[in-house]
C-alpha cells in the first residue's frame, strides 16, 4: 500500500490529471448510457468524486451567465447555488426515505446526471445563434425536453442501486424530476430580459 501511495505522489502532474479526467470520462459514459449492469454502477457509486459535478456545474453556470443580458455574475452564483442546494435537498430526501446513500454519493450522482442538460444548453446556444427565432424556440423546447427525460432516466437507473426499501422508488425519484425540471426550465428560458 505504501509503495502505491508513493508512486502516485511522485508521478508527473500530467499523469494525475489524465487519471482524474479518465475517471470523469468513464462516469460520463455511464450517465450517457444508463442501461449498464448493476455491478458496474454499484462500484461507481461507492467511489464518489466531486470533480465531475463541479466541472459540469461550473460549465452550465458559465453558459447560462454568458447568455444572460444583465448581471452575469449574479446568474452564475445563482445557478451554482441552485444546483448544489437542490442536490443536497434531493439526497437528504433519499436518505430520509431509507436509502443507503451517503450525502456525497448522492451529490456526485446528481451532479453527473446534469450532463445531458449541459449538452442541451450548448444546443440551445447553437440553435439561437444559427436558426431563425421561431424554429429555434421550438427546437430548443424539444431538445431540452428530450435531454431532461434522458437525465431522469439516468438517475432512475442509478437509484435502482441505492437500496431504497421496497416500493419507494417513485417517492425518491419525484424530487429529482422537480429539480431537473427547474434546471431545464432555466436552460430553456434563459435569463434574457426582453423589453
Amino acid at each position: 500500500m505504501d509503495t502505491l501511495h508513493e508512486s502516485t505522489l511522485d508521478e508527473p502532474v500530467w499523469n494525475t490529471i489524465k487519471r482524474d479526467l479518465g475517471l470523469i470520462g468513464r462516469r460520463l459514459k455511464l450517465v450517457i448510457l444508463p442501461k449498464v449492469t448493476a455491478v458496474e454502477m454499484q462500484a461507481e457509486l461507492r467511489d464518489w468524486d466531486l470533480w465531475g459535478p463541479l466541472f459540469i456545474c461550473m460549465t452550465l453556470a458559465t453558459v447560462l451567465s454568458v447568455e444572460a443580458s444583465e448581471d452575469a455574475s449574479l446568474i452564475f452564483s445563482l445557478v451554482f447555488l441552485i444546483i448544489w442546494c437542490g442536490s443536497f435537498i434531493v439526497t437528504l430526501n433519499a436518505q430520509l426515505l431509507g436509502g443507503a446513500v451517503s450525502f456525497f454519493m448522492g451529490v456526485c450522482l446528481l451532479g453527473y446526471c446534469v450532463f445531458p442538460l449541459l449538452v442541451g444548453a450548448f444546443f440551445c446556444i447553437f440553435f439561437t445563434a444559427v436558426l431563425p427565432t421561431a424554429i429555434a424556440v421550438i427546437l430548443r423546447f424539444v431538445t431540452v425536453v428530450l435531454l431532461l427525460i434522458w437525465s431522469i432516466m439516468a438517475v432512475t437507473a442509478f437509484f435502482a442501486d441505492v437500496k431504497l426499501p421496497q416500493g419507494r422508488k417513485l417517492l425518491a425519484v419525484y424530487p429529482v424530476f422537480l429539480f431537473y425540471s427547474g434546471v431545464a426550465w432555466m436552460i430553456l428560458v434563459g435569463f434574457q430580459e426582453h423589453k
Partner: protein
Amino acid sequence: MATMAANSKGEFLEPDYGAADTSHYVENWDQPSLEPSQTTASVHLSYLKNFFDLDTSDFLLRCRRALFPIGKKILDNPDNEEADIYGWVWIPTTVILVLSVNSSLFVFFSALFHQQDASVSHISGVNFRKFWIFSVLVYGYNIVIPAILWGVLVCTTSRQPILHLFCIYGYSCTSYIFASLISIIPFEVIYIVSFVIASIVSSITLFRNIFSEDEVSESTRSLYLFKIIATLLHVAFGIGLLMVFLYGT
C-alpha cells in the same frame, strides 16, 4: 497548605499544593463521547426518518383522498396510519414550481394568442421575483398557520399532534397542483374557475381532516369555531395564490 520556601541560595521554589482531588474529573474528556458510527447527524436523521415512513402506494392513496374529500379520511389506512412529512414538503414545493413556471408561460401564451407580439421570441427570462413571492406565501402559510393552530389547540381540551396538522395541511394542497397545471391555458376564465374549484375542494378536505380520529366530540363549540376559522383562512390562501398569479409583478 501552600508554602513558599526559599532555599539556601535565596531562590523561591514552587509552592507545594499537595495532592489534588481528581475523583470528580471526567476520564477521556478529550475523546468523542459518541461511538464513531453514531454521530449527531445520524441521530437526527434516524429521528426524522420516522416522518418519511411511507410507500408510494400510501402517498398516492393519501393524495387521492385529499382530492376527493367525500369518503375516507386521509390517514384512514389500516396499513399505515402514521402522519408523514413527505407530503408537506413536496406537494407545496410542486405548487410553487408549477405556478412560477406557468406565470411566465401565461404571459407568453396570452401574448401569442392575443396577437400582441407576433414573434415567438418574446419570452422573458426566468422570473425569480414571482418565485420568491410564491415561496414565501405557500411555505409561510403552511408553516405558520398549522403551528398557530396547534398552539391554540394545546390550550383546549383537544390535543392534536403537531405532525398530524402539518401532514393535513400538506396534503390539502394537492388540488392546487391541478389548478396550477391548468393555469398554463391563457384564458382567464378557465383558470379562475379551476382555482376556485381547487380552493373549495382543498377547504373541504381541510375541514374534514383537520382533527384526527381521537377527537372527543365535534359538538364542542370552540373546536368547531377553530375548524371554521382554519377553513376560511384556507379559502383566503387559495384566493391569495390566484391574486399573486394574476397581479404579482
